[in-house]
């Protein structure tokens, strides 16, 4: 249906979006690359000349680099596993007949609308505070010593907070997929005596594959760059410093732009590795 005329019109309409995104990607990227080869310390005289690969060597050689990569991957992986497993269970549950289904769905979806700074602050102070937090009250009620969540179990706490924020998203998408399951097929299988676990593995799970792909894709995009949750709760202490946060500290706290930019380049490489991996699955799964 596309004539020559409509094709050039189409290209014309596509151009602004492509040019803007290209600019948004390339301009800062080139600047970051440039800075990463400079000794750039705004508070100590500014641009002090070429650094060669010094910044790269220093950044990767610092003792906090590998732990930060590990922390990043643990948070992304942990949150993905928790939200997908719980999301499937919740989706199957919410699909059952019950009274007040609409209200329950509203309750479950609510955390998604809470801004990250708020949820981090509320969890940190009102729930995880070792003196006045609600958890501390519950622990004391059972005669246990309250846990200092954000220092003694910092990673678990952080993963819990972030999972709480993302569980609604996973649940909603999986629920939509569950609702399109062919219930007659399932009933037939049930009558033929297929137990729940085999119905789940052979019928439900394959049907959910696409939805799970979407959840993994979108959540990974957002989780790789989580910031506010760490900024507000631990400030990167107690082993919760992700790669993004480490770079943030180099740039803003130590004001070492060269070093931070080299870190930025590493982060971009890491994101690209994940992106290539994800785009493969998505490209395959989205046709």
């Amino acid at each position: 249906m596309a004539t020559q005329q409509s094709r050039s019109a189409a290209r014309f309409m596509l151009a602004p979006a492509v040019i803007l995104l290209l600019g948004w990607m390339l301009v800062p990227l080139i600047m970051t690359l440039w800075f990463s080869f400079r000794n750039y310390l705004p508070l100590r005289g500014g641009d002090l000349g070429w650094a060669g690969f010094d910044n790269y060597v220093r950044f990767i050689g610092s003792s906090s680099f590998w732990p930060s990569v590990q922390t990043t991957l643990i948070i992304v992986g942990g949150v993905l596993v928790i939200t997908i497993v719980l999301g499937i269970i919740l989706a199957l549950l919410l699909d059952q007949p019950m009274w007040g289904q609409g209200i329950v769905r509203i309750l479950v979806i609510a955390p998604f609308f809470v801004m990250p700074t708020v949820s981090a602050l509320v969890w940190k102070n009102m729930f995880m505070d070792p003196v006045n937090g609600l958890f501390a009250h519950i622990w004391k009620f059972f005669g246990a010593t309250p846990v200092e969540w954000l220092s003694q179990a910092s990673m678990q706490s952080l993963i819990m907070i972030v999972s709480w924020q993302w569980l609604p998203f996973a649940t909603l998408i999986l629920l939509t997929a569950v609702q399109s399951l062919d219930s007659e097929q399932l009933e037939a299988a049930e009558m033929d005596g297929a137990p729940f676990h085999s119905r789940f593995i052979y019928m439900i799970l394959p049907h959910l594959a696409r939805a799970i792909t979407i959840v993994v894709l979108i959540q990974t995009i957002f989780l790789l760059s989580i910031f506010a949750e760490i900024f507000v709760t631990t400030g990167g202490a107690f082993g919760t410093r992700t790669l993004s946060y480490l770079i943030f500290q180099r740039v803003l706290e130590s004001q070492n732009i060269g070093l931070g930019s080299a870190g930025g380049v590493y982060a971009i490489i890491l994101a690209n590795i994940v992106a290539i991996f994800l785009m493969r699955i998505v490209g395959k799964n989205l046709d």
Partner: protein
Amino acid sequence: MARAVTNNRKALNTAIAWTIGLLIFFPILWTILTSFKTEAQAISDPPVFLFFDWTLENYSVVQERSNYMRFLWNSVVIAGGSTILGLIIAVPAAWSMAFVPSKRTKDILLWMLSTKMLPAVGVLYPIYLIFIKMGILDTRTGLVIVMMLINLPIIVWMLYTYFREIPGEILEASRMDGASLKEEIIYILTPMAVPGIASTMLLNFILAWNEAFWTLNLTAAKAAPLTAFIASYSSPEGLFYAKLSAASTMAIAPILILGWFSQKQLVRGLTFGAVK
């Protein structure tokens, strides 16, 4: 899966689902409740749930101290402005990819999405410098531009999946009848695309409202939206639970209400149309 179940089974489902639903919602409920307590009751041991002296004092204190309305207005302008600007740029792009696809359409779409994976922190300083040079640091204009750019890939994707569901035959028929490209877009396409555009708008408004990296790092006193308003409560005011709760409630209430009303449209949008 509609099928006949006994009332017992239904009651059990209801009980389990409500328990889990309330558990998930509890942190929000607790925050809202605490915002009506006095500071002493907010940290009382054992905690009080409902039977306390309800007060609105925290809200007036928070408003007085940090001028909530200004932050709210900044949030509305930044989230709303970036969403509208994004739509203006994304609608033509999505239209062209959906109706005049080429071999590269899918690659362009995936590339657009991949720009979202670019770690923001990696380019923070360049953006910061550009903002200073252009004189838009700590302005709503600057934030509108950045929010628009980071959400543009998602807007394009969502619109693309919506547009693709509009049957091409209708467009062809209108073209046969002599409709120009402009008429085609205004009279045929737009009415059919309104639901999709509306849910795209909603989701992006929410994403921009809650975004907390650029808003925290590129604003100071003037253009700071609610994310910054609430971050200023992290310490030491964070220890005043009742006021923290009141501020939190004020920051999330607009979106919570908007989101609840539009949850059906949101689900479609969130899945990029890939899950039905």
